[in-house]
């Protein structure tokens, strides 16, 4: 089984976690949601070359019904700390997934990892190179990571409500594969919010063989 979808290091159209979940037994009924994320043209903007750069963004599916469960990757996600930097600086996982924080410094420098984010607050204490400590993130939402020692050491875990998420590529294209039939909301999340997040209803029918095409336009209002 593939690992979780790591953002920041290498942007891809599809996420490893989603591909991993598209097992043989699910292939027959699973659907795909794909499209493009763009920024709405603003008044006075002469052409598309003036369009602002797409922010670091995640597109994900949230089930409309409550209590729906999904298969999670068996392997934990991993975050390194070499150079007093969380690597990846942005990690996207599904709710219920475990993240291992590894102190992979070469020099004998200790780090701490903590977060005060609602529903996902924790403090892993100080630990030396070679040691790893893990957290299971149960509640969907944004988890801001910090080190209590190093001033600029910060990162983000976005805990998606399902394993069905993707990071758009440089052209804004995204694909979410292996989606079980059901009713969902296609939502956006921004690492540093610059635009209003979107929420678009999506229905995946058992008979859906082709992908649903949904384009997402972000604007400041």
């Amino acid at each position, binding site marked *: 089984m593939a690992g979780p979808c790591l953002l920041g290091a290498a942007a891809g159209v599809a996420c490893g976690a989603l591909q991993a979940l598209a097992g043989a037994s699910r292939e027959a009924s699973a659907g795909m949601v794909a499209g493009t994320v763009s920024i709405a043209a603003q008044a006075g903007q002469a052409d598309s070359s003036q369009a602002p750069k797409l922010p670091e963004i995640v597109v994900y599916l949230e089930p409309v019904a409550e209590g729906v469960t999904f298969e999670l990757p068996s392997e934990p996600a991993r975050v390194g700390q070499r150079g007093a930097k969380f690597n990846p600086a942005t990690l996207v996982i599904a709710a219920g997934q475990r993240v291992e924080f590894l102190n992979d410094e070469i020099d004998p420098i200790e780090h701490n990892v903590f977060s005060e984010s609602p529903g996902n607050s*924790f403090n892993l*204490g100080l630990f030396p190179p070679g040691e790893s400590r893990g957290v299971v993130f149960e509640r969907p939402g944004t988890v801001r990571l910090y080190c*209590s020692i190093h001033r600029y050491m910060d990162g983000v875990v976005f805990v998606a409500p399902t394993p069905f998420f993707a990071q758009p590529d440089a052209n804004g294209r995204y694909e979410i594969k292996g989606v079980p039939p059901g009713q969902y909301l296609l939502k956006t999340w921004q690492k540093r919010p610059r635009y*209003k997040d979107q929420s678009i209803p999506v229905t995946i029918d058992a008979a859906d063989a082709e992908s649903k095409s949904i384009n997402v336009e972000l604007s400041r209002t």
Partner: protein
Amino acid sequence: MRVLLCTTASVLAGLLAGCHAAPAPSPGLATVVVDVSARPHERVKPRRESGSDPLYGGGYDSSPGSRSAYARVRYTALEDVVIWLAPQSADAAEKRADAVEIELRRSKSEPPLVAASCGATVRMRNASETPMVVYSVSEGNAFDLGSLAPGEVATWTARAPGLVEVLDESQELPIARVFVAPSCWVAVCRAPGRVALRDVVPGQYRLHAWHPRLPGAELPLTAEPDSLSSADIWLGVDRLPHLP
């Protein structure tokens, strides 16, 4: 944490309690003086913040302006701590929120934090030499002021508690940061030290401390008429549940 109370009539007692630097309250009201501090992890001795302990990257520059990846959190000079009083009783009635003024400038670093009360009018002036498209998408406080010419002023009313990032369409970093507190008694402590909340209506309160990075804290506080109340509050990672 410590809460002390001294009456304005008792100058000597006030001096002994450390209240001498506080502004006196208006008749019938109270002044709350808060001493704010921050603590590193219990295993980290204070000297390691500025010393040369290799365990924490001690060979790197940790001076206030340092951009070294290993620059350490400056616990003895922590900035942007927001302090406010949340009323807990009917007699601790709210007063009118004070207006706040902000000069908007583009910068390559995070702008300083400003505190405002829920319901406060925030006047923002474009202090740059070019137009700014000023807006926010912060939860509960979204607004769009459109394009502001240099020197132009626009206002926004703070509605929901929390951090508000004011954005300019042409800049990645915010051009202003406003922490909206659910209280009209709010102040920003620029470095650990003392901050005074003046003309507090007597009653029961929860004293809150918030920081953009470190876990916050709160404690109960009673404000008595014509009195100076003094409290210590500290922020630190050891307030969070420790996972083995």
